[in-house]
């Protein structure tokens, strides 16, 4: 048919390197989700605040994260902050960029989730003598996380996909970065990137399955 033979050997040879890249990819995604979740909760709370400066800051973050491309946000950290004298490597730039993006989307998700927890729960907790922060942490938050668990899983998959943007700012240790290095050395573009695609697909499937397992274990009520 076409004058092209698919070579398996380079893929096999490169597999250990690519898998170690996949590990870096997962690391960045998990870290960005952790930061994004904490920041997202704080942003969701800040948006409800009566303090104009606080809620304005949160709104600006959320709308900025949701209405510009993730790649733009990574650029902002990598190139933009340089103008302010902050020079970051590609790894932290990517991590901060994705965490910023995650936080913005998660904040909106959390806002909806918080609204779905009946206000009487807060009231019941306060009536037992719990302070507002304690009641929030022990009574409201756990219930919110159940409501938003599915969208959070989706965000986690997106976080993995977003890590591929690192290559554009010169990251060469994650899955896409390593694939690109191999590609530049050997020009077996299709083989390497097809292999990378398969690995990304498997990672996102593992995330989905793990999430299902966690939900089944944790949310028994």
């Amino acid at each position: 048919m076409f004058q092209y033979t698919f070579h398996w050997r380079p893929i096999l040879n490169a597999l250990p390197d690519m898998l170690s890249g996949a590990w870096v990819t997962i690391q960045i995604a998990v870290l960005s989700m952790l930061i994004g979740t904490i920041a997202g909760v704080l942003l969701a709370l800040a948006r409800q605040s009566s303090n104009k400066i606080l809620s304005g800051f949160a709104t600006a973050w959320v709308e900025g994260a949701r209405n510009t491309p993730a790649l733009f946000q990574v650029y902002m950290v990598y190139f933009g902050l340089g103008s302010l004298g902050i020079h970051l490597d590609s790894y932290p730039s990517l991590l901060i960029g994705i965490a910023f993006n995650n936080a913005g989307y998660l904040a909106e998700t959390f806002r909806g989730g918080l609204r779905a927890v009946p206000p009487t729960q807060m009231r019941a907790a306060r009536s037992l003598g719990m302070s507002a922060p304690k009641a929030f942490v022990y009574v409201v938050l756990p219930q919110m996380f159940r409501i938003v668990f599915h969208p959070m899983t989706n965000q986690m998959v997106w976080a993995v996909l977003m890590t591929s943007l690192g290559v554009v700012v010169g990251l060469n240790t994650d899955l896409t970065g390593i694939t690109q290095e191999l590609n530049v050395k050997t020009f077996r573009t299709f083989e390497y990137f097809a292999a990378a695609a398969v690995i990304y697909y498997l990672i996102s499937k593992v995330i989905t399955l793990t999430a299902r397992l966690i939900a089944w274990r944790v949310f028994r009520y």
Partner: protein
Amino acid sequence: MIEIRDVHKSFGQLEVVKGVSMSVAKGEVVSVIGGSGSGKSTLLMCINGLEPIQKGNIHVDGIDVHARGTDLNKLRRRIGIVFQQWNAFPHLSVIENVMLAPRKVLGLKRSEAEAIAEQRLKHVGLGEKLKVYPSQLSGGQQQRMAIARALAMSPDYMLFDEVTSALDPQLVGEVLETMRMLSSEGMTMIVVTHEIAFAREVSNRVAFFHSGRIREIGPPEQVIGSPQQAETITFLQSVL
């Protein structure tokens, strides 16, 4: 002792409590009856500071509930409240529901809180349901769990806000039985209720609320047995 003096409470333009005064002594059971919207439930929320008031004051053991410097969290440890909608914490098992406040508010160790919770749950007849989640309980059982949850803080006062109104008729009895037991143990209680027979049986005094005011207050034989006010008579005729 709970002392309520000329309390006014509004939601926006709507004044629901219009100058209520009454006091409840230690060991006393006072029932509050009256039509829906008469302001009786709102008054309960004001007693433990869940709702602010616009005028008057409420003292619990000499502490002004709505004064600026009052530590409401500390005060609420001594005032248990049970709601009409039992408000179980759905993400916690029955025993965890009861343990939460002793652990997080009183700072008890897990084992200590567990012992208290188990004791209170057995007391209300839920000793077999410790590890179960609230969604697997009937409404009556959830309401008894809510009572145990409030009791776990060893309160001096218990407030009951129409605790049987949302229950299926066949489940009302078990909750009333639990409350009867508490009153026989000498617990100080304010019971907002529609169960007139129950109010008559357990209360030292009954207060009849009508459009934000107390119309009649006194021993049950008097208020329920031989009411003086026209509104009380009409109300009692409508519910009996």
